[in-house]
């Protein structure tokens, strides 16, 4: 068997195996439903509901990718090493580099699917909270129905064909949520009762008559930036998973995440003083602020795609560097 053909089966197996963990399904469902419920939780906030929902949704997307990346990576790598299945695979004609690259591809695919679903949920949630003191239920109900429908579909498939429930539900959500989103594109999102218009008088910014509520497509670049960040986090999680278990990896990744968020605050003064270690640390630490554009969207701002391209370059370079380190480590590792 040519070793070239072994990349896809390993990546595919990883893609298949990761969503079979019930905890992954629970986490995905919770995060997506939480984004979908945000308009109800945050509304009645003196005209700021839309911004709060948008910021919160993007934050859930960001944090959710961290929460998802680590268990996925640990399942894909450290559990396999511990169980001995990695050893069994590596005894076949497949190089370690190819093995790890296939694993990364597999977990990243699952991550992309999750972030894609969560991004669509963010767009719907933001649209539903656009009008002050009004929650666009007609926009959100398709999202809830998509999630419920995925579970029902998975139950039916499990009943008839005995396919695993968790992975079927996950992929069903991946199918139904985009369908729900497309459905809502044909809805105008207007309030359903005159009482909502009455409340509009309580706010600073009254909604503009009966104009349909548009989809805020400017959110897409912001979501895409977070997806890039998620792929970087996934690479970091994979590196940690080579040696560490879930909790240690999560702690380390969280530490990296927090330090990356605060790198400007922590290191700017030291860098201005010309300290080399500060410059080095700043270079190596991922600066997550480059990927957080919620504030840029306030007041109708946009994130240009050229910036997204630059950020993508940064993300891919950093991810590639980290994967090289991971590959170098894995190449020298004793796999029992």
């Amino acid at each position, binding site marked *: 068997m040519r070793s070239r053909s072994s990349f896809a089966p390993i990546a595919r197996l990883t893609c298949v195996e990761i969503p079979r963990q019930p905890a*992954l399904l629970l986490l995905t469902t919770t995060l997506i439903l939480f984004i979908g419920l945000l308009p109800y939780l945050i509304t009645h906030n003196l005209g700021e509901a839309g911004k709060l929902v948008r910021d919160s949704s993007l934050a859930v997307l960001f944090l959710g990718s961290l929460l998802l990346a680590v268990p996925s990576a640990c399942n894909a790598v450290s559990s396999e090493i511990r169980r001995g299945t990695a050893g069994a695979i590596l005894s076949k004609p497949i190089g370690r580099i190819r093995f790890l690259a296939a694993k990364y591809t597999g977990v990243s695919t699952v991550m992309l699917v999750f972030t894609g679903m969560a991004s669509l949920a963010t767009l719907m949630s933001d649209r539903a909270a656009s009008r002050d003191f009004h929650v666009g239920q007609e926009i959100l109900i398709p999202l809830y129905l998509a999630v419920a429908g995925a579970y029902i579909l998975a139950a039916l498939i499990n009943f008839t064909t005995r396919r695993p429930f968790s992975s079927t539900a996950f992929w069903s959500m991946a199918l139904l949520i985009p369908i729900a989103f497309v459905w809502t594109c044909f809805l105008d999102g207007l309030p359903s009762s005159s009482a909502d218009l009455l409340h509009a008088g309580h706010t600073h910014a009254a909604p503009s008559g009966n104009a349909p509520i548009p989809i805020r497509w400017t959110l897409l670049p912001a979501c895409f930036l977070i997806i890039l960040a998620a792929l970087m986090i996934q690479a970091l999680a994979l590196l940690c998973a080579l040696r560490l278990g879930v909790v240690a990896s999560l702690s380390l990744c969280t530490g990296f995440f927090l330090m990356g968020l605060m790198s400007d605050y922590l290191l700017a003064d030291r860098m201005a003083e010309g300290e080399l270690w500060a410059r080095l640390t700043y270079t190596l630490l991922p600066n997550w602020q480059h990927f957080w554009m919620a504030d840029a969207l306030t007041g109708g701002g946009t994130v240009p795609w050229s910036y997204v391209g630059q950020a993508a370059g940064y993300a891919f370079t950093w991810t590639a560097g980290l994967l090289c380190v991971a590959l170098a480590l894995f190449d020298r590792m004793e796999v029992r």
Partner: protein
Amino acid sequence: MSTLAAIYKLTLRSILRERVALSMLVLLALVQILLPMGLKGDGTPQGEIHMHIRYSLGFSIILLAGMMLWASCASIAGDLSSKRLHMVLTKPVSRAALWWGKWLAVTTLGTSLLLVCGVITLFRIQYLVAHSDLSSAEEEQLRRQTLTSRVPIDPVREDLSPRAEKMLKEQRERGALPPNLPEEVLQREVMNYVRLMRHAADAGASVEWTFHLDQPLRQGESFQLAYTFDGASMGVTRLPGTWRISTPDASGVFTTSVRHIPRGEFVIPLRAEGALAGADTLTVRFDNKSETSDRVFFKPDGGVRLYRHGGSFVPNLLRALLLPAGLLALLAAVGVSAGAVFSLPVACYVTAVFLFVRAFSGVVEDVVAQQSSHQAETKESFWAETTHTARLTVYKGILLILDPLDVRHPLDRVSRGIRVSSEEVLSTLGLRFLPILLFIGAGGIVCFSRRETGAAA
């Protein structure tokens, strides 16, 4: 008992020998060391002490909660998935002994580490006080207001309903009320207004409160008057005023003039001398001496308080730590029970949801309050109203479950020198937490007993 002890020792040993625990301990140490270096508060010693207690120690508790989440879930679920527990379950060990042994071990570890963090925080505060360049007056103020244990006394709560009803009636007769608002909303809004005005004083006018003390003031006893303006209702100009503290028969009078920008809490130190000594009822009055039309508002809840000395800081801090320790013990119980029922990842998820919802119960409370008012104020379609009611019911259900777990921010109170009483700690731990613990434990043991542990995962 020996089996329980054996399970306890084994679990404790296993946790400490796992890399998980080591990495969490390292993180905890880093937080204790690094976080205080980064957080300075408002630059005052009080602010820094507040940061140490509220944030450094608070963050440590969050980390501990994370560690205990993992340890408690893995104690049974982890052993089951690795099948180590099968060798134990074939021995004469009851499921109850197994549950309690695991829970005890996790709780012991968590509360011990919490105590260590508390002691480190204490040492840090002592060091801070010893090495700050404070004048003797500033140090005295610090010891009086922060590094102490003050018992708060709230003023007598009046029944403002007659006043509110009268106002509502007058407004209605004048035709000043919005026609479309439901009666409950009108009543609530009027009551809020009446409460606000009860604690307000126009320029040239006064506002008064009455305090009943459990014990009469002793001769020479130090006590404090603390007041907080409702800054949201006021501007930022300095307002002059006079405080007058007296007995009801006005025989003992203490007066002092003040001039404040109405932001933050202010404290006036007092001493029970003359006719104030022996008083068990005090009248406190504020005269608004503003020469412009500035109205003064005090916060309706806790805006004006007396504080009496109630002990020292160190025991107060240790008492306060018992409350989060109790919460951590409950978290451990949830984790062990979840681990007895579910697989490890799902058990972690369930326990994390419990932790998350508990941590954000304040948000749920706000949402319930807002959405209750929204429901009263609007008439929506049947479908919208039904879903709204369903959501509200769920939120209220969550609050009902979480209400016994509310400990009213003990660390925040300690950082402001407010006493956390032994009675409160004992009643919280004994009358609220203990039944919940027993309930969770019983549920976990029953489910574990019925579970087929020999089945493939």
